[in-house]
C-alpha cells in the first residue's frame, strides 16, 4: 500500500467530479489547471477516466441522484484513491443543508482525505490543499 502511494506521489492524476455544484468551484479547479496557477508543476494532470485516476476531486453538494453515481465511481476507481472535497457544498452542503434533495453529506458517503473550504475556494487555496495532501501521504509513508 505504502509503495503504491509513494509511486503515485510523483504525478497524481486527477479525476474531477461535480455532484451538482453551481459550477463556480469547477471554474476555480479549471483555473488551477491552466498556466496561470499551473498545478501541473506538481505533476498533476486531469485524467479522462476514473480508471486512470489517483485522486478524485469532488465539488458540489451530493444530491440523491448523484450520490449513487458517486458511489459507483468510487467503486470503479483503482485503490488506493485519494478523495479531495472542494468547496463549502461538498464539505457540509453549505446553504443546501436543509434541502429536500441533499440528505447526506459527502464524507458520510465515502471517506474524504482533504477538505478545502471556501465558496468558491481560491486557486491558491486549492493548491495549498493539494500540497498538504502530498505532505500528508509523504509523512504517512515515512512512518511505515
Amino acid at each position, binding site marked *: 500500500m505504502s509503495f503504491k502511494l509513494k509511486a503515485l506521489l510523483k504525478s497524481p492524476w486527477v479525476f474531477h467530479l461535480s455532484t451538482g455544484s453551481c459550477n463556480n468551484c469547477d471554474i476555480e479547479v479549471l483555473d488551477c489547471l491552466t498556466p496561470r496557477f499551473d498545478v501541473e508543476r506538481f505533476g498533476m494532470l486531469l485524467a479522462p477516466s476514473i480508471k486512470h485516476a489517483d485522486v478524485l476531486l469532488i465539488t458540489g453538494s451530493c444530491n*440523491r441522484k448523484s450520490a449513487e453515481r458517486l458511489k459507483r465511481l468510487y467503486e470503479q476507481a483503482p485503490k488506493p484513491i485519494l478523495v479531495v472535497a472542494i468547496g463549502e457544498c461538498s464539505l*457540509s452542503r453549505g446553504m443546501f*443543508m*436543509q434541502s*429536500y*434533495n441533499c*440528505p*447526506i453529506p459527502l464524507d*458520510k458517503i465515502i471517506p474524504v482525505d482533504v477538505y478545502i473550504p471556501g465558496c468558491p475556494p481560491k486557486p491558491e487555496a486549492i493548491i495549498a490543499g493539494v500540497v498538504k495532501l502530498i505532505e500528508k501521504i509523504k509523512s504517512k509513508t515515512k512512518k511505515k
Partner: protein
Amino acid sequence: MNREKILKNIKEKFKGDIIELFDKSPKRVYIEIKPQTIVKVASYIFKDLGARFNIASGVDTRFNIEILYHFTIEDINLLISLRVKLPKDNLEIDSLVKVFEGANWIEREIHELLGVKFKGHPDLRRLLLPDEWPEGVYPLRADYKEWDNNAIRDRGV
C-alpha cells in the same frame, strides 16, 4: 401591432375570461385568467400574436397554487405572464402540450414538484426526482415535511 393595440385586443377578445390585467411596467404585463380558459388564451397569444413561450413557473401561495406562463413578444419587447390560480383542493388544469411542445417538460416538473395534474398531457412521468421518492410527497409545497429518516440535517460540529 404595437403594445397598446395588443393589450386592447386581448382585453376585448377575452372579456369574460380575464380576472385582472396588471400593467406593471413598459416591458411586463401580468394577466390573471380563469383556469378553464388557459388553452384558449395561450393559443391566441402563441399563435396569433407570434409570442415565444419562455417557461412556466409554479408557486405555492398557501391557499392556492399559482402557475405563471411567461410569453415574450420579441418585436415589441413585451413579456406577458399569464397567471392562473388553482385552489388546493382541485389542482387540475388543461395541458398546453397540444398547443406547443415546449410545455412538455416544464409541466412534468410542476407535476412532480407541486402536485398539479395536467389534463391531456401525453406523458406525465417523473422528470427530476429520484426513483425512491415516495408518491404524493411534493417538495416545493409550503407544508412539505421531511420523510427520509436517514437524512442528516446538522453540520456535525
